């Protein structure tokens, strides 16, 4: 009797896997332990190995398809042996495609049609949904709407009890398209194409990160990165610039320099210039910096729009003007909403360093401490330098440790070498 090959749980949290590549093909001899296929789990690409000897009789799942754990993906048996799946409907890859295999098209950047894996023919929809735990819970109406609109329910974050996908979740949800592996490289520099942002569906691993970390610290799983920046050259530059401005007024503050540097660093690290949007991440091509301003009995974050494209003088003038009106509570709503990233400065209060709380849906905020003179090693000598401690709070659903660290490194380099901002 032929042996079934199941989609195995290759990680403790794996609920479904995408069949990346068949290493064996129908008719190939296989031995127990041979790698049959490569499977992308929620964590990594793993090997699916044969558990029986014989011939790979039938492959039930084409490459690129996402299959729930437990479903049959192939049969191994004696040559010529009949298998249950012959001619019958393939067991339940459900015709839906996972986030990994289906990035949605956006008007900004049409998904390349020359995707590495052409779309496999849609699988027949199984009459009965598999009764395993990986089944997407959805109301009957939501299922029907999703089916009619071609929406992949797996891509939809359910807002009902137990994550049930309901009508409001699928209305206006992006249709699943078929181009594989078109997940944008989020570390790309933000393209200035005139389109303000790009919505990228959550990938399997992103979904797992979002779910697990949100469950551990909740609703936003924060983590914090601190770096110390040498501000000596920034201070010199600031003094020179203010001397240059002289009586014209409108002096440049450290805060202005930091805002500009943060904005420019974000242009280089779009992965940090993003909003978490429950079922997708919005990567902004524009940079709007929220600037936390303490006001009586609270705080508010007026927004310096397109801060990366503004001069230090413009940023300085605008931030002073906004902060003044913020304290007088004269800000219009559009002036304190829409930031893509924020900065909070408690340096004036002699705070060495602190952690700021993320302003959702933004994914990060940088907390600025005081600039203090410190004795630091300089080769064999000890010199006194003006130093600044920056702490970035990151939403782990969007930004991973290394992603944040690379951004922070760029920011540090810009502040330590302000001329880099001219590049």
């Amino acid at each position: 009797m032929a042996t079934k090959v199941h989609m195995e749980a290759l990680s403790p949290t794996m609920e479904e896997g995408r069949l990346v590549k068949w290493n064996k093909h129908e008719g190939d001899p296989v031995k127990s332990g041979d790698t049959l296929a490569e499977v992308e789990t929620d964590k990594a690409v793993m090997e699916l190995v044969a558990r029986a000897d014989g011939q790979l009789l039938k492959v039930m799942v084409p490459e690129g398809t996402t299959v729930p754990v437990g479903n049959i993906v192939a049969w191994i048996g004696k040559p010529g042996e009949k298998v249950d799946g012959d001619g019958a409907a393939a067991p339940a890859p459900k015709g839906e495609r996972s986030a990994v295999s289906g990035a949605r098209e956006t008007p900004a950047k049409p998904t390349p049609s020359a995707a590495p894996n052409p779309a496999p023919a849609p699988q027949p929809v199984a009459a009965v949904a598999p009764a395993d735990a990986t089944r997407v819970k959805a109301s009957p109406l939501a299922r029907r709407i999703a089916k009619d609109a071609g929406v992949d329910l797996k891509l939809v974050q359910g807002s009902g009890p137990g994550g049930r996908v309901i009508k409001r979740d699928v209305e206006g949800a992006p249709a699943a398209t078929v181009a594989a592996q078109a997940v944008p490289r989020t570390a790309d520099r933000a393209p200035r194409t005139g389109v303000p942002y790009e919505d990228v569906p959550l990938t399997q691993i992103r979904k797992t990160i979002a779910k697990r970390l949100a469950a551990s610290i909740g609703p936003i799983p924060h983590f914090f990165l601190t770096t110390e920046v040498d501000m000596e050259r920034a201070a010199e530059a600031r003094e020179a610039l203010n001397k240059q401005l002289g009586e014209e007024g409108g002096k440049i503050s450290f805060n202005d320099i930091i805002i500009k540097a943060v904005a420019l660093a974000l242009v280089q690290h779009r992965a940090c210039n993003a909003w978490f949007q429950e079922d997708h991440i919005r990567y902004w091509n524009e940079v709007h910096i929220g600037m936390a301003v303490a006001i009586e009995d609270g705080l508010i974050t007026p927004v310096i729009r397109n801060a990366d494209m503004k001069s230090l003088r413009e940023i300085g003038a605008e931030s002073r003007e906004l902060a003044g009106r913020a304290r007088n509570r004269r800000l219009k709503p559009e002036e304190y909403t829409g930031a893509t990233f924020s900065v909070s400065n408690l340096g004036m209060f002699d705070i060495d360093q602190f952690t700021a709380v993320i302003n959702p849906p933004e994914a990060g905020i940088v907390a600025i401490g005081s600039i203090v003179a410190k004795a630091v090693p300089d080769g064999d000598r000890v010199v006194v330098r003006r130093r600044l401690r920056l702490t970035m709070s990151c939403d782990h659903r969007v930004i991973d440790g290394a992603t944040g660290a690379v951004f922070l490194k760029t920011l540090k380099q810009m502040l330590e070498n302000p001329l880099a901002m001219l590049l």
Partner: protein
Amino acid sequence: MPTLTYRDALNQALREEMQRDPNVFLMGEEVGVYQGAYKVSRGLLEEFGPKRVVDTPIAELGFAGIGVGAAMGGLRPVVEFMTWNFALLALDQIVNSAAKMLYMSGGQIRIPIVFRGPNGAALQLASQHSQAWESWLAHIPGLKVVAPATPADAKGLLKSAIRDNNPVIVLEGEMLYNLKGDVPDGEHVVPIGKAEVKRAGSDVTLVCHSKTLTVAQKAADQLAEQNVSAEVLDLRSLRPLDEAAILESVKKTNRAVVIEEGWPHIGIGAQVVDLIQRDAFDDLDAPVQRVTQADVPMPYNKHLERAAKASPEKVVAAARKVLYLNGD
């Protein structure tokens, strides 16, 4: 259009039908000289005399049986029970004689009879006199069951019940008799088996009948303040059930709450939910919720009684649940 109480609308229906058809007569405890425990038969003895308005002893099984016999003999009796709680004693005649005769006689013997009276709880009448019997009665093939909620429907459905050639149960309500509403003069007949949308809405269907129409309407008002548009569907007839109307509404709103006075177990709502899950499955965005009396004998204590009854607050909570507005 004249404004009448529910009681006077029933009285009008009885009078008009007795004027229209000399075979129609009324029978029950205190219906004649006392003019009805709830004054539904006011003036009828005077107008139609003791042969057509018959005071009976306190013997429900007996006079229900006389009614069935009279119907077999060609008359069209209207049997009033002082409350449906007392009609339990007459269930053998209702279920075994009235409901089955047409079938067991091979279609030879029709039983054109109306059994009517107040149903469900009023105020502090305690467990034995505060019961809603519709699921018992609507369970029986051979009976038709109507439960009008408004004066106009009371008149129109009682007229239909009297004219029907089958036994028809008319469920009224002590708390409904004083309810006022517009009632068309003269020939106003509401067909049995037709529900009515009493308030159109788009977000959730509140299925109700009889006294729970008021509950549903109050709930719909409260929901409107929360920007929820509730459709109130009054079943009016419980057997036959207007399945098309229920499905049409649920297909529009995708969500339903079914409200009734009776107990939850095997209630009218269970029947409605069964229909919805089967025939509107793909239109449902949430499991259907039910609001019923608590699953206990009705308490006498005022506060406990209030807590046990279906209320607008419970309906609002159920509606928010099917709309996923409770944050759970």
